[in-house]
């Protein structure tokens, strides 16, 4: 390949690109051209929006584009696509699938959702019951998914389905890219504790998917799903922020600007949280430096666990600091938000929404099991569900 890409070279590349493309022009055209120039996600391969450059150099590019007032590809809205679908398609997809899906995913022309959880299969994701049955050169899908974030906006879904019930549960799964516009896909809003309907139930009735929409081999769905899940943990709580860039900044600002609210006990609490937030932020920096140097570690799981606990405690403290004023909620409308914004709304919203952080993307309990077994090497608990065929398991 070409010589290693440096920050300097990247900046010049961005400047060269900006010289030929008007940031104030057509949004989509601009984003597509940026993708084609390899300046979308620089660590992706050439031809797929990247330059095979170190991942740490991405901020160099993003900052340069932002400074030029270039359109944003709306990473928060496309979080599931960026964080989970894309790395999975890159790793397990065919050349045709990569070429078909990655560009519109990155430009946010096509939003993605994750069709994993089911009423009967949450933490025990390998237990999914949604069936995929061969139908000529395609598949027929029947089942029900639940808690599906953004399904109402999604063009595509990553789907885990059962292709063989007569083998042990991990062996009978296959991974699909589900066309959310296909006949038989029905999305129903599901309201959550915050009042809004960020996620959905998704009913799949006789949905026909071409075999080209299968990702990975038949029966290999669990291995593919593990790629998604690992990337999901890194994606949640792994954002690169400046000091006080996250929720702790909101709390710190309230503390600074509202001296009448202060008490010695809350002071110590605020300081403890400030220390933890800073420790987590530094952990993220160290993790990204390791990733960039090609030394990925299991620290992403630590980030997700610590992030969930921290957002919950910071937002809880914020409500208490504000006293009765902190109890005045903005509204309970059943909004269908286009993107999640923890900072934008009030303290009670933050406090409620943060409760989901230790459930979504795998609960903190399940993540602790994973850390204990895979990172620390502690023995698994005795299990009844791994030897028997899926169809014979109690449900």
């Amino acid at each position, binding site marked *: 390949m070409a010589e290693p890409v440096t920050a300097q070279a990247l900046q010049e590349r961005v400047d060269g690109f900006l010289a030929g493309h008007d940031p104030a022009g057509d949004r989509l055209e601009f984003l597509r051209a940026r993708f084609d120039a390899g300046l979308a996600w620089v660590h992706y391969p050439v031809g797929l929006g990247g330059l095979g450059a170190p991942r740490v150099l991405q901020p160099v590019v993003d900052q340069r584009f932002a400074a030029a007032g270039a359109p944003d590809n709306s990473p928060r809205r496309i979080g599931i696509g960026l964080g989970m679908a894309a790395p999975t398609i890159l790793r397990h997809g065919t050349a045709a699938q990569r070429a078909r899906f990655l560009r519109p995913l990155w430009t946010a022309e096509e939003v993605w959702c994750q069709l994993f959880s089911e009423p009967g299969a949450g933490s025990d994701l390998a237990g999914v019951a949604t069936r995929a049955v061969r139908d000529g050169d395609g598949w027929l899908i029947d089942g029900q998914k639940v808690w599906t974030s953004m399904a109402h906006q999604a063009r595509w879904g990553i789907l885990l389905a059962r292709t063989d019930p007569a083998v042990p549960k991990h062996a009978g799964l296959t991974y699909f890219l589900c066309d959310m516009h296909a006949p038989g896909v029905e999305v129903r809003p599901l309201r959550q504790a915050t009042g809004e309907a960020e996620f959905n139930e998704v009913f799949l009735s006789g949905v026909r998917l071409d075999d080209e929409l299968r990702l990975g081999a038949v029966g290999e769905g669990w291995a593919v799903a593990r790629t998604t899940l690992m990337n999901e943990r890194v994606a949640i709580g792994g954002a690169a922020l400046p000091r006080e860039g996250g929720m702790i900044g909101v709390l710190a600002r309230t503390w600074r600007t509202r001296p009448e609210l202060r008490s010695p006990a809350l002071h110590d609490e605020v300081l403890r949280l400030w*220390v933890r937030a800073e420790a987590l932020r*530094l*952990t993220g920096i160290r993790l990204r430096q390791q990733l960039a140097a090609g030394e990925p570690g299991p620290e992403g799981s630590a980030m997700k666990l610590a992030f969930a606990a921290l957002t919950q405690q910071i937002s809880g403290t914020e409500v208490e600091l504000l006293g009765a004023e902190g109890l005045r909620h903005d509204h309970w409308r059943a909004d269908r938000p286009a993107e999640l914004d923890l900072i934008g709304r009030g303290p009670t919203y933050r406090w409620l929404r943060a409760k989901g952080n230790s459930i979504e993307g795998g609960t903190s309990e399940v993540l602790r099991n994973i850390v*204990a077994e895979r990172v620390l090497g*502690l023995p698994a608990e*005795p299990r009844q569900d791994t030897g028997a065929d899926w169809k014979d398991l109690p449900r």
Partner: protein
Amino acid sequence: MTLDLRYTEEQEQLRDSVRAMLTDHAPWARVLKVAESPEPDDADLWRLLSVETGLVALAVPEHLGGAGATVAETAVVLEELGRAVAPVPYLGTTVAAHLLVHLGESDLLRELAGGEVMALALPFDVGPTGSGLPGVEVSTAPDGSPLLNGTVSSVADGLRARVLLVPAGGALFAVEADAAGLRRSPVVSLDETRPLCDLAMWNVPARLLAAGDRAAAALDAAAVAGAALLASEQLGLAQWCLDTTVAHLKARYQFGRPVGSFQALKHRLADLWVELVQARAVARHAAAAVAQGDPDARLAASLAQAHCGPVAVRAAEECVQMHGGIGFTWEHPAHLYLKRAKSAAVAYGTAAHHRAVLATLADLAPA
């Protein structure tokens, strides 16, 4: 400036060689024996660390007899010393070295690089900015040279020090350990692997090292370095506690299963690991910030003590608890780690002290 929080390849090699050396020369049975003996520390191990390997003067400039490395390397040595609860006056001497480098005291640095122990004559719990310095008074001998009078209690690494660096009367003095009028009394210390001593001085002849702002700045730099470096020792200690506990829980069977397969224990260990991952980032950040003279060094050091001290204590407490009865015995090393962790959590300022420092640095005023 973004500080690099990873270990370099050279640092990993340094770690390997220090660990190998400590495995041979500081197995815990020996550590316990030294701790129980009247000796303040392990003189043989000290000779190995100072004279034979030059690890004590790692961060001292080459032209002064050191290795010309940085505090980031010293921190790696401290991780390993923490892992071994090694009974050597390394931390205190390293902090003294930092102060001497700050003052450009070449003669003392050369002695230090040659294996002499040096210690700051301050109570072990004095941290950066603020907590009161002890009141040692300065008078003048008929020939005009300074004399020191007063007491300093709970000095770490001071028993075998050849030279004591004494803050007094707004200045800094060097006092020879065998000076007339100086008495050092050992204290029965919680952490016998890093014993404390009390100093009493009656008209002790001293040499002025620095006065005024220069003295204050050097002392402050030493306190910041001490708080930052200690975090790496705490990290190493916590890592040993986690590793040892995991190994034990895999081998110990109760109720027909390895106890490590019980979720009640697995989750606690997973949480401990999560804290350790963060402690590593924080400790590396502090070491890098001090090594590079980063403007953030003071904040990084206080953050490190506010975070890593409590993590090490919890790791040691969990280690004792999850080992069950054996963990509570004198014959198991866990108690050495528990005592070291608690003592280190007070050293160079408690977590509460550092949170108060952070309140100022981060503009989070008290109620």
